[in-house]
């Protein structure tokens, strides 16, 4: 009512009674309004519930509801709805509840409940539309009152628990799922509906899921127990790829690869189940349960029965399945253990063979390659497994001292010779790379260097290496992995050879080489520090050789006056042209052999003693030489008596009757026993070197610490040494240092040492 300024004065003046014209009185409701309207609504609701058309139009009903609400009869409407819904539900279920689980003409229990729910929800939706006004006003304004939808569904929920349908439905649903797992066809529609009903009614998380998971667990526990209990050993299948189709779980005993295929299928089925009728939030718990029962609990057994065979057979796809399943089951630790055990077992067997030969090396390479393939492929370079491989490999390679490095050096030596046709499948760069990686696993690399140097020296000096490039390539790889300090002596050897070549060219052009009677002569100058140590040998060299040697030494002294040269007769080689009855032959001999042979230029027969006198050769060495010339494959000397070995009373004659189909004949002077002895010598030298290093280190440590306890000293020593020092070796060196008054024991505690300055 607007009170304008104009009328105000009028009112004041008039002071009349205010009369409103045309006032209508509020009509009061008829008494029966409420009951009639509600009755109308009730029958409408019932009609909806019977899927019958309503007497009034939906709009009229809507207004009826509105009207009642406006007149504050909302609560009556609400109660009416509640009771109608309740009654309807009860009557629908009465039939279903009493029905047994078996099929009936009306369908299974699940089907009937499904039908009920579908129509109920449709009806409830319609009711909600009709009674929308109620929902929006009375319901919202009143506390502790559920929305119409909630109320409607709540009615069903209450009813289900009252007549125990909850657990019955759960049980029936789960039974259906079990049937499906058993491979039978089921109708999924009821499951879809009922499970969404459960979700709606908040029955999904409780009680359905726990019961379902429990059943799942038991089901797979039974299945895995049966299948795993009957596992057979791995059948290698070369041609046929194992696929899901030809594996059926009802078949009798399977091996692990087939079991894994089966497990994957089960997991796929469960995933499918989630998308078909379960709720996505259940995916994790369902898959975890499945994989726990099928894989996680049996991890040890699965690995024990199969891993070894699968590795040996390089069954990569199956290993990939195994890995991914174990990863999902969180059992990589079990895989790690079995992986390590298998590697060590196989490796130890290879390495510990008593008479193991140089073929160990290609076997190790192949083994490593197989393991790497598995690691990088199926095992996806998993860091734990990578680490395990490295440690296990290292452990078995070093389970035997000294032999592996020696064999590795020997194998490389063979590769360098042109006669070897080893490992042509790889190019040489890859092969050398693999060999050096193999070396990196081995302890005692200083011993390897000693062997390698000895073999390299022979190859360089005798010219038996097939290619200088290959030699340099190997050294380069060693340098890259072990450092320049490791290869410094090897590099020095190569430099010496180059310098020697250069020098020799200059020598040839110089005046020192002008001797007309000279023999074809070649000399190498070796820097003593780089090359292996050789026993010095006395030898009375033939005149021509001596002359040539002296010429060379004079030439060299002119260039490098301060240096001292010493001829290594044991390394020298020569070629002799010898006339036999059969004809001229070229004998390729060591210098020492040649020297002995040349004695027979002037003498047809010589005794052992005479040879000894004329050559200044000693005992074992002389016997060896004579044996190679008279008892071996090519007998250029005849020995009397004709026994197998040389003794000091023997006599030797030049064998004019010697014959051979070749013109150029090499007579080797090395027998296999010599090679073993040589290896032993190399090992001993390295051992001596090591002990010097240990002594020096011990003294240094004592100087630093002044006073130290025994175990601590041994531990410190181990940290500083690049090779393994056993506790016993350490103890012996300490005892020696005590004896030499470098250290002394403490007076009160004999396990503590003091440095003696």
């Amino acid at each position, binding site marked *: 009512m607007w009170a304008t300024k104009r009328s105000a004065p009028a009112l004041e003046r008039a002071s009349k009674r205010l009369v409103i014209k045309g006032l209508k009185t509020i009509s009061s409701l008829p008494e029966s309004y409420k009951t009639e309207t509600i009755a109308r609504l009730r029958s409408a609701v019932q009609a909806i519930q019977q899927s019958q058309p309503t007497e009034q139009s939906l709009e009229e009903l809507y207004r009826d509801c509105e009207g009642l609400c406006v007149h504050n009869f909302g609560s009556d409407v609400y109660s009416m709805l509640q009771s109608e819904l309740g009654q309807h539900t009860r009557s629908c279920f009465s039939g279903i509840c009493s029905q047994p689980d078996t099929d009936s003409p009306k369908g299974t229990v699940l089907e009937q409940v499904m039908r009920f729910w579908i129509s109920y929800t449709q009806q409830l939706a319609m009711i909600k539309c009709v009674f929308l006004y109620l929902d929006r006003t009375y319901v919202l304004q009143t506390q502790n009152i559920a929305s119409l939808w909630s109320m409607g569904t709540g009615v069903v929920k209450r009813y289900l628990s009252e007549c125990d349908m909850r657990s019955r439905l759960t049980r029936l649903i789960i039974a259906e799922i079990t049937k499906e797992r058993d491979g039978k066809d089921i109708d999924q529609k009821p499951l879809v509906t009922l499970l969404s009903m459960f979700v709606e009614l908040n029955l999904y998380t409780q009680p359905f899921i726990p019961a379902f998971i429990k059943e799942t667990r038991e089901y797979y526990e039974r299945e895995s127990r049966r299948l795993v209990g009957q596992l057979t050993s791995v059948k290698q299948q070369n041609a046929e790829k194992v696929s899901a189709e030809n594996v059926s779980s009802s078949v009798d005993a399977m091996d692990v690869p087939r079991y894994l295929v089966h497990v994957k299928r089960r997991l796929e089925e469960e995933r499918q189940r989630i998308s078909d009728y379960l709720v996505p939030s259940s995916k994790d718990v369902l898959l975890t349960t499945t994989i726990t029962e099928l894989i996680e609990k049996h991890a040890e057994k699965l690995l024990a029965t199969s891993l070894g065979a699968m590795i040996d057979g390089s069954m990569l796809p199956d290993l990939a399945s195994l890995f991914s399943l174990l990863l999902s089951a969180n059992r990589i630790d079990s895989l790690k253990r079995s992986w390590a055990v298998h590697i060590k077992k196989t490796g130890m067997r290879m390495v510990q063979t008593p008479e193991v030969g140089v073929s160990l090396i290609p076997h190790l390479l192949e083994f490593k390659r197989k393991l790497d393939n598995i690691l990088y492929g199926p095992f996806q370079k998993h860091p734990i497994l990578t680490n395990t491989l490295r440690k296990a490999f290292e452990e078995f390679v070093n389970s035997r001292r000294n032999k592996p490095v020696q064999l590795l050096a020997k194998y490389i030596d063979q590769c360098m010779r042109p006669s070897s046709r080893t490992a042509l499948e790889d190019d040489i760069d890859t092969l050398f790379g693999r060999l050096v990686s193999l070396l990196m696993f081995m302890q005692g690399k200083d011993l390897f260097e000693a062997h390698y140097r000895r073999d390299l020296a022979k190859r360089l000096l005798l010219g038996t290496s097939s290619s200088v490039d290959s030699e340099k390539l190997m050294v380069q790889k060693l340098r890259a992995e072990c450092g320049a300090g490791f290869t410094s002596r090897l590099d020095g050897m190569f430099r010496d050879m180059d310098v020697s070549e250069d020098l020799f060219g200059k020598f040839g052009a110089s005046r020192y080489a002008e001797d007309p009677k000279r023999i074809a002569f070649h000399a190498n100058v070796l820097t003593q520090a780089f090359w292996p140590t050789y026993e010095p040998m006395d030898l009375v060299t033939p005149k021509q050789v001596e002359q040539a040697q002296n010429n060379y030494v004079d030439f060299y002294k002119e260039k490098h006056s301060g240096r001292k040269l010493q001829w290594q007769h044991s390394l020298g080689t020569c070629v002799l042209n010898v006339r036999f009855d059969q004809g001229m032959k070229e004998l390729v001999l060591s210098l020492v052999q040649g020297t002995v042979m040349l004695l027979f230029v002037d003498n047809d027969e010589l005794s052992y003693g005479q040879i000894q006198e004329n050559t200044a050769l000693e005992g074992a060495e002389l016997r060896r030489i004579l044996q190679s010339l008279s008892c071996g494959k090519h007998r250029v000397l005849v020995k009397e008596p004709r026994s197998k070995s040389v003794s000091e009373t023997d006599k030797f004659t030049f064998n004019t009757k010697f014959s051979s189909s070749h013109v150029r004949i090499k007579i080797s002077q090395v027998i296999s026993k010599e090679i073993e002895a040589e290896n032993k010598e190399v090992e001993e030298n390295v051992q001596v070197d090591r002990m010097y290093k240990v002594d020096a280190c011990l003294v240094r440590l004592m100087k630093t610490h002044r006073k130290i306890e025994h*175990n601590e000293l*041994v531990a410190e020593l181990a940290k500083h040494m690049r090779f393994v020092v056993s506790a016993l070796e350490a*103890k012996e060196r*300490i005892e020696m240092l*005590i004896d030499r008054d470098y250290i002394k*024991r403490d007076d009160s505690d*004999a*396990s503590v*040492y003091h440095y003696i300055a």
Partner: protein
Amino acid sequence: MSARKLKIWFNQYKDPDTSGGEEKITPEGYQKLCESLGYSMDGIEALVLTWKLGSKDMGTITYQDWESGLKQMCVSNAKELKQNIDYTVAGFSSDVASYRPFYRSVFNFLKLESQRTVDVEDVKAVLPVVIGGDSWVVPQFIEFLDKSGDKVKSITRDQWQLFPNLVEFLRTADAVAGYNTDDSWPKLYDDFVTWVKSRS
């Protein structure tokens, strides 16, 4: 005691042949001296006496050693000398600190001047004398040395010096099992204990 009386006492046992220069008691005289004190040459007292007199070689005592040694012991006649020696020997079993210098010096007596080690035969002979008590270790160790033959020809100073420690360590029966070859014992002892273990 007067220097004269000391000299008279000394002269009773000195070597009559003084052509070598200095006057000294030699092993024969020394034996007589020990007998006069009631000591057998096989006993520990004979060693203790020569040690206390500061002699460089067992049983050889110069007059200088004689005079200074007896003065240091505060002894002037045979009876007092015997008391002193007996008392010292008795003290060994209770006082390790007094025993150790004696025990260590026995090594010097056994070895030749030019050498660093002692012949194993001498060690075998002397060990039962200088190690008191009735430890099982000494006879077993001697047997072990016997059985080792050529492998053990001499004993180093370190090996000698640690022997009482070993005896002490092996006092209990289960100490053998507790012996650890990684400890700082000399390797010879490791071999010995291993040998003992293999016999039981």
